[in-house]
């Protein structure tokens, strides 16, 4: 059986889905899972192929979101946008990518659990900066009522346009990751993950390649940040705080840090739990459920749901996989 049939089925299901579901299922579940999945993808890319872990991906997405909010029309700007929206989006993605590079420069000084913590510190700096700066970043309240652009009279935030926008972005970024890990740059990154010393002695600049991987992750997160801003219609320090930061890690781990598809599976599961745990457990203890699901997955399968799926089917790792990443880090 060709894997292409499965892929074609999945693609057509994703394309047809919004015509079967209600607005809530299209946007608040479908599109939002893809937005969250894109941000988690930036982390999964780093872990699966770079053997690096970053807690600053939500902050990176937030940097792009804040940049876009500043240049867009919002509730405190009297309907005025500082830049036409295509420019603003360009600036936002540039800011996110640059943030990724700067974080990378600091992060690659250490590795493993130390990298996790140094990136967490960077994320907290960005969080408190957003909270304390009132002149540019609007302090504790952040931005609300951010205008979402219209294309040919259609608001990009309408259920169908927004869903397809997110789907297109997710598909393109996923394809970008799959492409990158097959070209020389990606192979070098994976070589560094497996044996940095050997790669260094082969003449590769380990440091530079790792920072470039952070740049790619920054770009991916920035796209997620732009979509997230449009989804929420605003951004505030809470959007990049410790809870949001840990949530990205939870999403990536639930889905599986070993393969980019894990980011989206994790995001879907997370969004479903977030929305429906209250109905399931019937009480206010939905955080216990999230924590429990997370714990069970971490214990049962270090590769998350994608790894579990593979193990249940008993198939061998496919060539793209990062394998049991947690032990590599």
């Amino acid at each position, binding site marked *: 059986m060709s894997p292409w049939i499965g892929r074609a089925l999945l693609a057509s299901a994703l394309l047809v889905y919004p015509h079967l579901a209600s607005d809530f299922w299209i946007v608040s579940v479908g599109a939002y899972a893809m937005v969250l999945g894109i941000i988690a993808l930036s982390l999964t890319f780093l872990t699966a192929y770079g053997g690096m872990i970053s807690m600053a991906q939500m902050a990176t997405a937030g940097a792009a979101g804040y940049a876009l909010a500043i240049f867009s029309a919002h*509730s405190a700007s009297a309907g005025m946008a500082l830049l036409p929206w295509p420019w603003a989006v360009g600036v936002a993605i540039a800011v996110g990518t640059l943030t990724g590079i700067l974080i990378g420069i600091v992060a690659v000084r250490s590795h493993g659990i130390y990298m996790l913590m140094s990136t967490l510190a960077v994320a907290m700096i960005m969080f408190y900066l957003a909270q304390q700066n009132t002149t540019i970043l609007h302090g504790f309240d*952040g931005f609300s009522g951010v205008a979402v652009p219209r294309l040919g009279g259609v608001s990009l935030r309408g259920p169908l346009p927004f869903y397809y926008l997110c789907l297109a972005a997710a598909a393109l970024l996923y394809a970008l990751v799959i492409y990158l890990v097959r070209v020389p740059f990606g192979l070098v990154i994976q070589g560094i993950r497996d044996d940095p010393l050997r790669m260094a002695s082969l003449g590769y600049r380990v440091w530079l390649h790792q920072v470039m991987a952070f740049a790619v992750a920054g770009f991916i997160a920035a796209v997620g940040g732009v979509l997230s801003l449009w989804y929420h*219609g605003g951004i505030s320090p*809470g959007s990049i705080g410790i809870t*949001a930061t840990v949530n990205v890690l939870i999403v990536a781990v639930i889905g599986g840090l070993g393969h980019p598809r894990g980011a989206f599976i994790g995001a879907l599961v997370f969004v479903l739990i977030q929305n429906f745990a209250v109905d399931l457990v019937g009480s206010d203890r939905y955080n216990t459920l999230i924590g429990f699901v997370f714990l069970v997955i971490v214990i049962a399968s270090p590769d998350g749901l994608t790894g579990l799926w593979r193990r249940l089917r008993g198939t061998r790792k496919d060539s793209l996989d990062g394998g049991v990443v947690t032990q590599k880090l």
Partner: protein
Amino acid sequence: MLSRKLRCLALVAGITAGFSVSVSAQSTNIRIGGLATLDGPFVALGQEAFRAMELAFEEANYTAGGRKIEWIKESSDGRPDVALTKARKLIEQDKVDILIGPMSGGEGLAIKEYAKTAPTRTFVNGFSAAQETTLVSPAPNFFRFGADGAQWQAGLGNYVYDTKGYRNVAVVAGDYSFGYTQVLGFMSEFCAKGGKVIEKIWVPNGTKDFSSAIARIPNKADAVYIMMGGADSINFLTQYDQSGAKQPLILGSNVSDQTVLSAKGPFQRRLVGLPSAHMVADGIEDAVYKDYVAKYKKRFPDGLSSPSAPFYGYYVATKAVLAGLNQVAGDLSGDQAKFRAALSKLRLDMPAGQVSLDENRQAIANIYVTEVARAPDGSLFNKVVKVIPNVNQTLGHPREAFIARGVPSRDNPSCP
């Protein structure tokens, strides 16, 4: 392989269909969503909010205007993003007709903006008190039956100037918009009288140890105005007490709330006699109010020693919704136009006095200037020393002039 994938898809489709069917089966019940914080820094307030809605619904026997009421709860954690996600779920998935909430300022701003995109539903604010929510570009379907953070301080500036005789005051307050708003409410009276706010110390959210902020309080201040949220204010009060500082305190509305007064600790002895102001006071000597407190204590024996301000906020909001529904006999047709018109014209007699709305659907209500006192059973409460009737959002100033003063911030207003 193929069949497994197909089965998978069928399952997903089934789940989706199941959810959409269960909702589209339009019932004749009125669905009311409640949004409060059962997570994050405002947990204690969220618990009070849901108690309030529960009591108000029980008093109405879960009916209004001849229709049954279905109550759907959602919890936020105080972050605007999360409040928005949960509000979307309530409106779009649970199809509530009316949403009551949220709890805090940033959430309120986000929900107001969201309300503009859901014009067929009605939003009634719970306890969020940011000034801009209703002052600047209000949403036509967003109602606030509670006073805002600046209104809450009405009368306090005059009281401490005239009665306490304070002339120079230092401010120590949380460095976020609610802090600015309350300080503005206090200063607009105090400065107009000729009082001076000689130093403002803004403490970042997330600060645990306030001792160096306390060290900065100038000696020549007659009193210190403080405003922080929940646990932070308890930390501040304890450290202030331990530091041996002698200056009397003036309490922002959050600091004199029952969620702080009910917390046990040695700082309590420092509180007696301190002035504050709020839209409700647990020392109101009035039969209606006492009846309200008695109902609270009977219904929630494990609750606080008397209902808190967030309880009052959500209680008034729920009562307003019920009264509006009764007036239109449960008729929510025409995108709720009739119901909204009824809400706008409501004059509600609430335990802490009458509430009506201005043209921006913002409450005009009584404000109570209080002093903390000790009840015979040893618990602390806010004794009413003055009632300021019918305080409006512009604190008695003409609207244009008030808006022209600008939004509250670290430096606005200023009278050093």
